């Protein structure tokens, strides 16, 4: 049952990811990317990371993808204005990434299987355990992340201004 679910979600994720790259219209690419993110959230649920699945849907599908869609609609990009690479460049891109896949899969095949040292705990993806780790051991990186978001916000506003006198 779970194996079928995993195979189905993986198939959908790979198909939607390919459609992101191959579809001509940028708006369709964004919508396919949203579907890819939903399948990845399904994988998180399968892996007992329920809270992360919720955060993933809220942050990626809710915030980041809406930002992408907003910019695409603002720039009025569509099928007619879409720039295309030549056939040779496309073929060489496909060959290069295919070779990368072969190299990565080949290096993973020889890898040893890891052995879990901790006892199995099904609750690590729930908010209680995760919050204790985040606000205990990782408190300083958490605060630094807030500074990073502030800097990004200031930078985006600076870049978005029409001209700086």
């Amino acid at each position, binding site marked *: 049952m*779970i*194996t079928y679910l*995993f195979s189905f979600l*993986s198939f959908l*994720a*790979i198909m939607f*990811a*390919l459609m*992101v*790259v191959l579809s001509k219209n*940028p708006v369709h690419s*964004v919508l396919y*990317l949203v579907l890819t993110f939903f399948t*990845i959230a399904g*994988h998180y649920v399968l*892996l*007992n990371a329920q809270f*992360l699945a919720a*955060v*993933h849907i809220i*942050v*990626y599908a809710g915030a*980041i993808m809406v930002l*992408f869609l907003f910019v*695409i609609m603002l*720039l009025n*990009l569509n099928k007619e204005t879409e*720039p295309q*690479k030549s056939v040779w460049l*496309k073929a060489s891109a*496909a060959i*290069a*990434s295919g070779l990368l*896949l072969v190299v*990565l*899969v080949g290096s*993973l095949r020889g*890898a040893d*299987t*890891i052995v*879990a040292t*901790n006892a199995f*705990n*099904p609750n*690590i*993806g729930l908010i209680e*355990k*995760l919050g204790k*780790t*985040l606000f205990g051991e*990782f408190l300083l*990186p958490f605060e630094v*992340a807030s500074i*990073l*978001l502030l*800097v*990004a916000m200031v*930078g*985006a506003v600076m*870049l978005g201004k029409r001209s700086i006198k």
Partner: protein
Amino acid sequence: MNAIEVIPLNWYLLLSTVLFTIGVLGVLFRRNAIIIFMSVELMLNAINLLLVAFSSYLSDSKGQVFVFFIMAVAAAEVAVGLAILMMVYRNTKSSDINVLNKLKW
């Protein structure tokens, strides 16, 4: 209902490798800068999936905390990147990366 007792870790390794490679393919394949950004997001998500898989298999919540930080960095990157893209579009009237060849040797 537990995936990690049924599915070997290698399957997740393979899945995130394939997703990462599709992201690399998107960066090499397209000329639209927004699609290239989206492919970078796809690569980040492949790595997130791998971190969550390792975290679940090793019963260690640190991996999932790292996924939070990657999400924060991705949000910051998208905000700044799309602002840069709007600037580029305002100056060149195009989102084609081949227009930006001033730094090319």
